[in-house]
């Protein structure tokens, strides 16, 4: 019997070994309902757009998150496409991505974002996801990481410390540093006519050296330009792509010839140019009934913002459309990109506007779809994306209406698959049942335990939690504004996080997932004194990427401040999770005292 | 032919192309007897053994081993074999080799008694590559007997062994026979056949040229060779007593005598002009030459 026992032991060991091996489905594929969905299936009864052309009345086979040949013999669950229109997941070729952007993008069918400048640490955090086909709830990210610009050039104005360069000699080391940070490609900011703007710019030689260095390391170099002369310089310097079109003048034949000759691609980013030109397209997106169910307050907030300085009028916007049309006619490779979340744009949703703007520029709807899928993948060398041929990653969108007939039909999304898994959008935005008690009094801070009458409590908060270098601390002080006792906050605002903050956070809900319904209240009141200056009140709501904020003034004497909720109309007041009082961006060391907080 | 014969062969013939390896051989081995198949290299001994093992397809005749066709499983289970110039996997130990072969048989001997019978006690953990030539040969012997066979084939089992190893091996064979096992031994050493066998068959150029007890064979083959220089012709010595053959070889005259002392006495009495006298044992080759009356120029072959 010994041999049988030996065989059984070997079998048991091998089985045990198999069970020890990691599987992609272990935690991630379990959706909230606890049901595990498979990323292998056959989708039948569809009209397929494979990224370049349409194949009517066909099917696709997905095996383990990849498109497989239809003649695969594997027996697979069949999903009826109900004669819908299947297109590849959209690729937004120009974004700035942080926070919840990737989740939001996927909700609108954008399965890959090509970021053109973000905190490289964000890229590092999200880079691994794109290498596997796990079930995920967000789009994949490729990014330039830190951009290349001059001291006080465009890109340095956001508060995030950005390494800069001024001369060609620095280019090689600069590019190497970016690659070490994980940059997938190099994005360069260049403006030949920067004297007219309030930014500086690197010179053409430096741009050229950066492009050469990037190419030496086998990376693409793309250039941000905003006028035609700069575009000419960039193409001459060997740029692989321009990440904007321009509106200052009509594109010259010389530039068209150069673009064509060098195979330079262009990402017109008409969405952001439209916003710059005050085209008010954001409201139209919000009002679109096919999208409205997905528009969160934060999306709304972003879409309704406008550039404070941008009012170039219809004329220049028409230039941008015209230039795009001419480039298209000249056979230049065009990529759809939004520049979200710049004012007037938002991640995901704006891609549906961008393809429409491309059609407005003379592309056929199918050409616009190619610009939003295959062209982007092709230009950036992403072989598994932007198409639905065998081998592609099963990132795809099923539409209920034909986008080749009307590009607006990209919005008629029935199902989104990411890595072969159905993406379910959690939009349980129902209003919280929790209401305020005690007439809305938060606290008069009578004693040192700082326990509020409403909500969970106060805590110091800073960007330290995001690896920034701001600091904050809170404590109780005996001297209040009217009565005894108050909350004292002090700290330092640092400069290592793009959006630095430091102050005190008040948790109103029982968790960040469960807020309090403040629709019956009208305002929040509090008394404050401290180091004079501009401070901010932030409102946190469930599911929003960024808190809404409003400024208030602090002086050395106790001042009552009342902030009406009406001022913050994009906030989802039905589900408020907390407030924060934080120091402004310009401050470094600060201190202030809060007292008598009441929500009315 | 006995009903219970271990091996019975009738009219066996085998050719390789034009070469007639075996010609019309009749042969029998009875239970418990040791039969030596004596022959020079190339006489057909190995072909014959292989026919009995079923490893060679013969052209005509009949071969039965325990009443079955050669190579039949029942036959193989009742026989053990030592083949010529075999090498075993170097990395296995004596014990592992024996246990493996024991598992092939229905009623194998316990490991200890196999080791004892093959004189390998204390060496069971040795690997094959650490064994001397004699030990290796005794391991093959152990593999041949581990299944308590009724018949053992030993194909030239002592080739290449020194005198002591050969003696050891002979003892093993004798012991085996004493326990009632039949043995077929091929050898080209007359001495070996003489010492061990109950019966000797002479195989020469593919046919059995003589069969009998060792004494009978020896009386035909045995004797001594007397060599000397002399001005006389070889024929002149034929009249000496007990001389079975005489011939000229180079400068020497060679006489073959069945009773050398007697012959020498007469030789030395009769002839004064004899120089460089030597007396040696007759080799098997010489014996066969004598037996078949072949040309005296047949080259010598050293018997190793």
């Amino acid at each position, binding site marked *: 019997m010994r041999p049988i026992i030996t065989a059984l032991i070997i079998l048991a060991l091998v089985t045990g070994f198999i069970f020890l091996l990691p599987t992609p489905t272990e935690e991630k594929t379990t959706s909230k309902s606890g049901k595990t969905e498979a990323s292998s299936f056959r989708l039948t009864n569809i009209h397929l757009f494979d990224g370049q052309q349409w194949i009517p009345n066909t099917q696709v086979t997905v095996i383990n998150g*990849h498109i497989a040949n239809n003649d695969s013999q594997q027996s697979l669950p069949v999903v009826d496409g109900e004669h819908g229109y299947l297109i590849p997941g959209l690729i937004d070729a120009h974004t700035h991505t942080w926070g919840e952007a990737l989740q939001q993008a996927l909700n609108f069918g954008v399965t890959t974002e090509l970021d053109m400048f973000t905190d490289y640490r964000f890229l590092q955090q999200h880079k691994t996801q794109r290498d596997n086909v796990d079930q995920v709830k967000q789009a994949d990210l490729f990014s330039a990481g830190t951009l290349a610009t001059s001291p006080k050039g465009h890109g340095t104005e956001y508060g995030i410390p950005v390494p800069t360069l001024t001369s060609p000699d620095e280019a090689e080391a600069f590019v190497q540093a970016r690659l070490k940070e994980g940059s997938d490609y190099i994005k360069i900011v260049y403006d030949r006519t920067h004297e007219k703007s309030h930014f500086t710019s690197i010179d053409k030689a430096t741009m050229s050296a950066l492009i050469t260095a990037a190419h030496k390391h086998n990376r693409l170099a793309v250039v941000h330009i905003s006028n035609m002369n700069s575009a000419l310089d960039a193409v001459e310097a060997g740029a692989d792509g321009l990440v904007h079109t321009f509106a200052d003048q009509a594109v010259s034949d010389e530039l068209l010839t150069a673009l064509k000759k060098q195979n330079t691609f262009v990402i017109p980013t008409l969405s952001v140019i439209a916003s710059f030109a005050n085209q008010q397209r954001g409201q139209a997106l919000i009002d679109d009934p096919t999208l409205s169910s997905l528009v969160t307050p934060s999306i709304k907030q972003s879409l309704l913002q406008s550039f404070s300085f941008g009012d170039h009028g219809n004329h220049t916007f028409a230039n941008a459309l015209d230039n795009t049309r001419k480039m298209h006619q000249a056979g230049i490779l065009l990529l759809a990109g939004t520049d979200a979340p710049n004012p007037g744009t938002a991640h995901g949703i704006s891609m549906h506007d961008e393809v429409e703007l491309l059609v407005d520029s003379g592309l056929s709807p199918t050409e616009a779809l190619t610009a939003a899928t295959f062209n982007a993948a092709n230009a950036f060398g992403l072989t598994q994306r932007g198409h639905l041929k065998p081998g592609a990653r099963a990132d795809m969108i099923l539409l209920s209406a034909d986008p080749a007939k009307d590009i607006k039909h990209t919005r008629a999304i029935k199902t989104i698959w990411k890595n072969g898994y159905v993406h379910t959008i959690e939009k349980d935005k129902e209003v919280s049942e929790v209401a305020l008690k005690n007439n809305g009094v938060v606290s008069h801070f009578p004693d040192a335990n700082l326990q509020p009458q409403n909500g969970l409590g106060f805590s110091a908060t800073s960007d330290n939690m995001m690896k920034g270098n701001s600091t904050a601390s809170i404590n109780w002080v005996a001297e209040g504004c009217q009565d005894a006792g108050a909350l004292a906050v002090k700290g330092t605002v640092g400069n290592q996080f793009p959006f630095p903050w430091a102050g005190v956070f008040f948790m109103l809900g029982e968790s960040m997932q469960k807020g309090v319904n403040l629709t019956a209240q009208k305002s929040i009141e509090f008394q404050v004194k401290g180091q004079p200056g501009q401070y901010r009140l932030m409102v946190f709501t469930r599911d929003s990427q960024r808190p809404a904020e409003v400024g208030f003034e602090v002086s050395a004497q106790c001042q009552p401040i009342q902030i009406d909720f009406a001022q913050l109309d994009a906030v989802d007041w039905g589900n408020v999770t907390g407030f924060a009082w934080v120091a402004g961006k310009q401050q470094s060391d600060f201190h202030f005292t809060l007292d008598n907080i009441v929500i009315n | 032919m006995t009903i219970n014969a271990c091996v019975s062969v009738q009219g066996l013939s085998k050719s390789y192309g034009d070469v007639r390896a075996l010609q019309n051989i009749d042969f029998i081995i009875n239970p418990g007897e040791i039969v030596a198949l004596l022959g020079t290299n190339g006489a057909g001994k190995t072909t014959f053994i292989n026919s009995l093992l079923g490893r060679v397809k013969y052209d005509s005749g009949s071969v039965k081993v325990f009443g079955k066709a050669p190579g039949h499983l029942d036959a193989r289970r009742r*026989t053990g074999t030592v*083949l010529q110039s075999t090498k075993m996997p170097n990395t*296995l130990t004596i014990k592992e080799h024996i246990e493996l072969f024991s598992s092939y048989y229905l009623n194998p001997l316990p490991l200890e008694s196999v080791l004892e019978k093959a004189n390998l006690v204390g060496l069971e953990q040795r690997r094959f590559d650490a064994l001397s030539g004699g030990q290796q040969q005794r391991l093959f012997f152990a593999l041949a007997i581990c299944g308590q066979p009724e018949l053992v*084939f030993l194909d030239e089992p002592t080739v290449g062994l020194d005198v002591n190893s050969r003696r050891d091996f002979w003892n093993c064979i004798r012991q085996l026979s004493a326990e009632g096992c039949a043995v077929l031994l091929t050898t080209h050493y007359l001495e070996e056949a003489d010492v061990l066998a109950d019966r000797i068959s002479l195989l020469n150029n593919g046919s059995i040229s003589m069969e009998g007890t060792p004494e009978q064979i020896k009386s035909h083959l045995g004797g001594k060779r007397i060599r000397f220089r002399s001005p006389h012709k070889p024929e002149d010595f034929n009249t000496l007593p007990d001389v079975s053959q005489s011939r000229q070889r180079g400068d020497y005259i060679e006489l073959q005598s069945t009773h050398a002392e007697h012959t020498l006495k007469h030789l030395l009495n009769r002839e004064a002009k004899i120089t460089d006298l030597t007396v040696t044992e007759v080799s098997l080759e010489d014996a066969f030459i004598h037996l078949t009356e072949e040309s005296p120029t047949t080259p010598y072959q050293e018997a190793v």
Partner: protein
Amino acid sequence: MSQSFTFNQRLRLFSLETQSEFLKVIRMPAFALPSLAFPLMFYVFFGLIFNRGGMSGQMPAYLMATYGVFGIIGPALFSFGVNIAVEKDHGWLALKQASPMPISAYFVSKILTAMMFALIITMALFSLAAIFGDVRLSRSEWAMTLLVLLLGVLPFCTLGLWLGLQLKAQAAPAVVNLLYLPMAFLSGLWIPIDYFPDFLQKAANLLPAFHLAQLTLKVQSLDIGQSWMIHLAALAAMTAIFLALATRAFHRISNN
């Protein structure tokens, strides 16, 4: 009156034969070490260190499958090809044939030994891939890959058998290597077959290793898209051809 073995005796025979074969091989470091180490080393170099980024991160998973095939072919070809040639020339095979050993035990033990090596190599490869290559497969994919690789030794055992019976002991290692290494390369075991020019991709259809690699990759849908039935049929046909050739060679050596 032929008595027969009890089940236990038969089991003991086969297990002892397999154990002997396995011990024999594993105690030859010159054979065991390269067979186990080379596929793993190659995988570490080409699958984990140099090619990480290739094929959008699929490289470690892809090469795990193909180096698995590479790894299991080695012991199968060598255990049969070289060992049988040696055992034939050393008279070992003849002695076994003269003994009451069932010939099936001889082949089963060699197949099982090749499979044990395949198992060890595959498990080591899986571990490397999972720990250092971030390869994530479903349970059934892991299990299927293992199963395909284990059964995949069979065609190469028959190929090895034929070569072993055909070749002289001294020539066998050289000939087997001469066959093994180019076949591994041309079948896309080292470099994905998609990178090959078209005519080489077509020519690969003649190689058993190509079909086994495609079957193994099929588990993860990383194959070039032919039907699994084609690969299976090709492997079965090649196995049958090698087996027929081996039978012929076997009869020839028996009758000399």
